[in-house]
C-alpha cells in the first residue's frame, strides 16, 4: 500500500467557512493520521452576521453528530420554516417560500398541476393552504416531526437562523477538541513550488511558517490563495444581480422570534430580517449604482422593528463565482469561492456543499486532475443554478417604481432561466434537474409568488372527477391543519428544548 502523500491540511481563515471545514475534516478524516491547522487572525473581521440557513444544514450537522438542541442553544438560534417575501411582486404583496412540499404528488404528476386545475376552477389562490410549513409560519408555531408510525401527516422541514460568529466559535471548540490546531497569525506570504506552482507554505507576520500538503482557502471574498496567489479568475454576474453592498445592523428583539426569515424588497435591493433568540439581524442588500451607502444605512436604520444594537456595517462584494474553485493543491470554500447574495440563504449551504464534495474526492496519493475537474464543474453548477433562481426573484415582478426595479424587470437574463420561466408560464412546471438545489416546489413557490399564474397544467390532472379532486385536496388540507394544530408556539418550543443561556447571548 502506498503511503498517503497528503497529510497536512491547512485552512486559511476562521470565519464560519473555515471552522465548518476544520470541524468536518476533524470528524471525518480525524487528526490521528492527519494534521489539521487553521490559521486565522483576530485582526481580520469575519462577515458573521445573523445568518439564515436551509434544511440541508442538518446533513452537515449530522455528519458532525451535533446535538441539535445544543447547537441551537450555542448559536442563539431560532427555527426557520421558510422565507416571507414582502413587496417583491408589487408593493403591499407578500408570499411565503416554504421549506417542504405543497400537498402530495398524485397520479404521477406534481401536486401543483392538480392544484392549478382546482384554483383555475375557482379554488382559493392561496397555495399555502396545502403546505404545513407555511401554515405553521403564519401561526408562528413550530415542532419537529414526531416519531410516529404510520407517518400520515406532512413532515416538518426546517432550518435555523443563527449567529454566524457563534456558529464558528461552536465549531471551533468542536474541531479543537478533535485535535485541529488553531494558529493565530496573519499570512504575509504564500510560498509556491517553483516548478509546480503548488503551495508549499505560508509565512506569518510573526515569522512562523506553516507548511501543508492541501490548502483550503477560507479567507473570504479576497481569495488570498485561490485568487491572489493562484489567480483563478472570477466570473462576474453583477449585470444580473446588481447588488454589490450590504449594510448590516442588529437590533433588539421585537417580541417572540418568528420561525421564518423575512426578505423585504426595497428601492434599490432588499432588506433581510433574521430573528435570533435574543436579537434580530437586519441588513440592506443594495447596489451602490442606485443608492449611496450613506442613504442605504440611513434607510436601514429607520426600518428596524427594535432598538439598534450597533452602528451599521458595510460589506462589499461582487456577485459571481471563482472560475475555478480548486487549483493545484488549493481549494476555495466560502466567500473565496464566489458570492451570491443571501436572498435564499444559500451561503452556509454552498460552503457545506463544497466540504461534502471535498470529502467525496478527498485526495490520497497526489492530486487527480479528473477529480479536481469534477469538483470544479460541480461547484460551478451549484453556483450557477442558485444564481438563476435568485435572478428569477428580481426579473419576475410587477415593480417598476424605482430605477433599480425598472432595471431588474427589463434586464437581459440567462437563456437557461428564460426557458424555465417560459415553460412555467405554459404548463406550471420548470422541470428542474434532480441535481439542482432548488426543486420544482421551490420554483413553483417563487415564480407563482412573484406573479406568474401558469396558463395551463399537465393533462393528467384533468383525469379525475371534480368531486374526487376536491375530496383529495380536502384530505391534504386536513393533514396540514392537523399537523399545525399539533404544534406549539415557536417561542414555547425554544423555551422547552433549546433556550440559549443568558451568558451566551451574543452582542
Amino acid at each position: 500500500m502506498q503511503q498517503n502523500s497528503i497529510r497536512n491540511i491547512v485552512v486559511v481563515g476562521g470565519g464560519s467557512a473555515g471552522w465548518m471545514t476544520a470541524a468536518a475534516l476533524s470528524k471525518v478524516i480525524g487528526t490521528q493520521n492527519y494534521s489539521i491547522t487553521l490559521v486565522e487572525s483576530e485582526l481580520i473581521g469575519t462577515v458573521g452576521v445573523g445568518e439564515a440557513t436551509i434544511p440541508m444544514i442538518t446533513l452537515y450537522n449530522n455528519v458532525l453528530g451535533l446535538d441539535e438542541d445544543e447547537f441551537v442553544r450555542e448559536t442563539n438560534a431560532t427555527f426557520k420554516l421558510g422565507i416571507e417575501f414582502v413587496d417583491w411582486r408589487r408593493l403591499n404583496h407578500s408570499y411565503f417560500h416554504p421549506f417542504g412540499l405543497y400537498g402530495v404528488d398524485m397520479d404521477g404528476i406534481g401536486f401543483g398541476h392538480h392544484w392549478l386545475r382546482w384554483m383555475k376552477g375557482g379554488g382559493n389562490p392561496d397555495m399555502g393552504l396545502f403546505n404545513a410549513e407555511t401554515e405553521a409560519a403564519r401561526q408562528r408555531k413550530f415542532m419537529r416531526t414526531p416519531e410516529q408510525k404510520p407517518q400520515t401527516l406532512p413532515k416538518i422541514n426546517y432550518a435555523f437562523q443563527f449567529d454566524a460568529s457563534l456558529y464558528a466559535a461552536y465549531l471551533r471548540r468542536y474541531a479543537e477538541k478533535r485535535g485541529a490546531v488553531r494558529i493565530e497569525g496573519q499570512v504575509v506570504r504564500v510560498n509556491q513550488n517553483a516548478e509546480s506552482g503548488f503551495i508549499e507554505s505560508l509565512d506569518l507576520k510573526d515569522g512562523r511558517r506553516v507548511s501543508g500538503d492541501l490548502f483550503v482557502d477560507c479567507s473570504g471574498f479576497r481569495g488570498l490563495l485561490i485568487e491572489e496567489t493562484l489567480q483563478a479568475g472570477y466570473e462576474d454576474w453583477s449585470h444580473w444581480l446588481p447588488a454589490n453592498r450590504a449594510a448590516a445592523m442588529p437590533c433588539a428583539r421585537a417580541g417572540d422570534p418568528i420561525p421564518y426569515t423575512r426578505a423585504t424588497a426595497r428601492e434599490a435591493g432588499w432588506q433581510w430580517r433574521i430573528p435570533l433568540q435574543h436579537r434580530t439581524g437586519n441588513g440592506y442588500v443594495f447596489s451602490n449604482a442606485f443608492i449611496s451607502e450613506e442613504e442605504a444605512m440611513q434607510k436601514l436604520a429607520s426600518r428596524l422593528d427594535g432598538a439598534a444594537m450597533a452602528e451599521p456595517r458595510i460589506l462589499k462584494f461582487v456577485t459571481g463565482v471563482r472560475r475555478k474553485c480548486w487549483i493545484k493543491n488549493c481549494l476555495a470554500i466560502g466567500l473565496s469561492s464566489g458570492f451570491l447574495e443571501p436572498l435564499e440563504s444559500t451561503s452556509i449551504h454552498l460552503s457545506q456543499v463544497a466540504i461534502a464534495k471535498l470529502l467525496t474526492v478527498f485526495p490520497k496519493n497526489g492530486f487527480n486532475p479528473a477529480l479536481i475537474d469534477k469538483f470544479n464543474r460541480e461547484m460551478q453548477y451549484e453556483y450557477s443554478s442558485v444564481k438563476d433562481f435568485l435572478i428569477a426573484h428580481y426579473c419576475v415582478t410587477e415593480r417598476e417604481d424605482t430605477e433599480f426595479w425598472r432595471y431588474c424587470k427589463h434586464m437581459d437574463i440567462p437563456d437557461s432561466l428564460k426557458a424555465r420561466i417560459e415553460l412555467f408560464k405554459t404548463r406550471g412546471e420548470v422541470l428542474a434537474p434532480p441535481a439542482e438545489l432548488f426543486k420544482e416546489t421551490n420554483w413553483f413557490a417563487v415564480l407563482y409568488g412573484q406573479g406568474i399564474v401558469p396558463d395551463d397544467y399537465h393533462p393528467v390532472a384533468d383525469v379525475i372527477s371534480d368531486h374526487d379532486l376536491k375530496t383529495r385536496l380536502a384530505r391534504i388540507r386536513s393533514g396540514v391543519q392537523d399537523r399545525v394544530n399539533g404544534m406549539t408556539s415557536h417561542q414555547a418550543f425554544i423555551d422547552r428544548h433549546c433556550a440559549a443561556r443568558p451568558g451566551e447571548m451574543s452582542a
Partner: protein
Amino acid sequence: MSQPIARVVVVGRDAAGWLSAFALQRAFGRTGLTVQVIELPSQLSAADVYAALPTLSNLHRLLGLDENEVVSACAGVYVQGQRFSSWSRSKPDFMHAYDTQGVVINHVDFIQYWVKARAEGLAVDLEDFCLGAAAAKQNRYVLSKDTTEAFSNAAHGIHLNARTYVRLLKQCALKTGVVSTVGQIASVNRSGASIQSVVLSDGQIVDGDLFIDASGVEAVLIGAMPEAPFESWRHWFGADRIMVASGKRLTPLPAFSQISAYSNGWIGLYPLQNRTGMKCVYDSSRQSDERTAEEIGLTTGMRIESEVVVAPLQSGARARPWVGNCIAIGESAVVLESLDAAYLHVIQLGLSRLIAFFPVEADALVEADAYNADIAAHVRNIRDFQIAHYKLNQRFGEPVWDRARDMNIPDSLVYKLNLFAHRGRVALYDHESFEIENWNAILIGHGLMPRTYDPLADALPRAEQIGKFKGMLHFIAEEVRTMPSLDAHLEIHAPYTGAGAK
C-alpha cells in the same frame, strides 16, 4: 268539470315563506301553477342561524340547489350531530349523531348486544360504536364511501346564516318564476273556510285558489280560520322566551351543534364559518334577560359579540294546519323548541306533505284531512322526542328541571320510554322523523339504561361478541383517521368568502 288549482298565494316571511313559494313553483310551475308571495317584514336578526337535520338535503335536491353552494354562500357548516352537555349533573356529555350504532349481528340489533355487554362490565359507550359520533368528536367530515356505507348511515346536518339563506331562497324563487309583492295584510276576504282574496295595506287585492300561511307565529291567515285553534304545550315545555346572539368563530370548527342545559333552560351553539350562532331557550318568569345573557357567557365560555335579540316562545300546535283553502306552513302551524334542529324540519314536513297531497280540484279539497292527520302524527313524534330530553334530565335541585322530570308526559311517550327502559327497544310509530338510532342515542345518552335485552343476543358466544366489538371500534378509529377535518372539507368544497371570512 272542476277547476284545477291555478294560483297559489303565499303570505309569509323568511325561510317558511320563501321555501314554500320556491318549492311549489319548482314542483308545479311546469303545470301552469302561478305562485305569488306577499312578503311580510322579516323577523330575523343578523345573529339568527338555521340548524337543519340531514333531511333538508332532500328538499334542496327538489329545489335544485347545490348544497355546497348553499353552505358556501351562507357561511354554513356541515355537522355530524348535536352534543348534549350538562343535561345530567353526573353523566358526561353525549353525542346525538346522525348515524347508526354498530351493526346488526344475526338479525339482532347491535344495541341489544351492547346492553348485555354493559351489564357484564363493558366500559365503552354506545356512541363509541357510532362512526358519525366518533367523527363529530374529532371535528371530522364523514365522506360516505363503500367501506363505510355497510357500517354507517352517517349524514350531515347543516348550520346556515339565516338571513343569507333567506336571501338566497328569495333570489332562486324569483328566478324560477315566483312573483312577489312586499306588503302587509289589511284584511282577508273569506266565505266560510274559503279565502277568496287578501287585501294589502296599500289597497291591492290579491286573489288565489290556495293560500299558504307562512307568516310564522303571527298566523295572519290561519289564526282567523274556524276549527284551527292553537293548542299550547306549555305544560311540557316550560320555556317562554328565546334569546339569539352571536359569538366568535370557533377554530377548529366543531362538527356538531352544542346543546347545553343550564339552571333555567338550554343554550345552543351553532358554529358557522364566520361566527358562532347562540340561542338560549329559557323561562323568563325565573330569570331576567340580562341574567340570561350572562348565563350564555358562563355556560359556553364565549363572549357575546352581537346585539342580543329576545322573542317570546309559545310551544304548541294548531289543531288543523289545513283548513278550507288555507294551509299553514312552519310556525303558523306548529311551534316547537329549536331543539333537535326542528325548525326547518317542520317547514320541510309541511311542504313535502303538501306537494304529496297537492289538491287536484280547487273546490273540493278532500286532501286536507289526510294532510292534517299526517302532519299531526309527525309533529306529535317530534314533540315526544323533545319532551324526552326534558323528562330524562338529571339536574336535581333546580325547579325548572325538577318540574320537567316530574311532569306528566304524553301516553305515546310513556309507552316508548317504558318499552325502552325494559329491553332497549324503540317502539316506532308511523310518521317518525327520528329513527331508531336517533332515539337510541338520546335515550341512552340521557341515561335511560335498559334493564334487560333481547334473549336472542345470548346466542352469540361471548368471545365472538368481544371480537366483533373490537373489530367495530378498530374500524371506526381507522376510518376517522383518514377523514378530512370539517375545516378542510369546507375550505375546499364550500368555502365562505363573504364578510368576516377567516
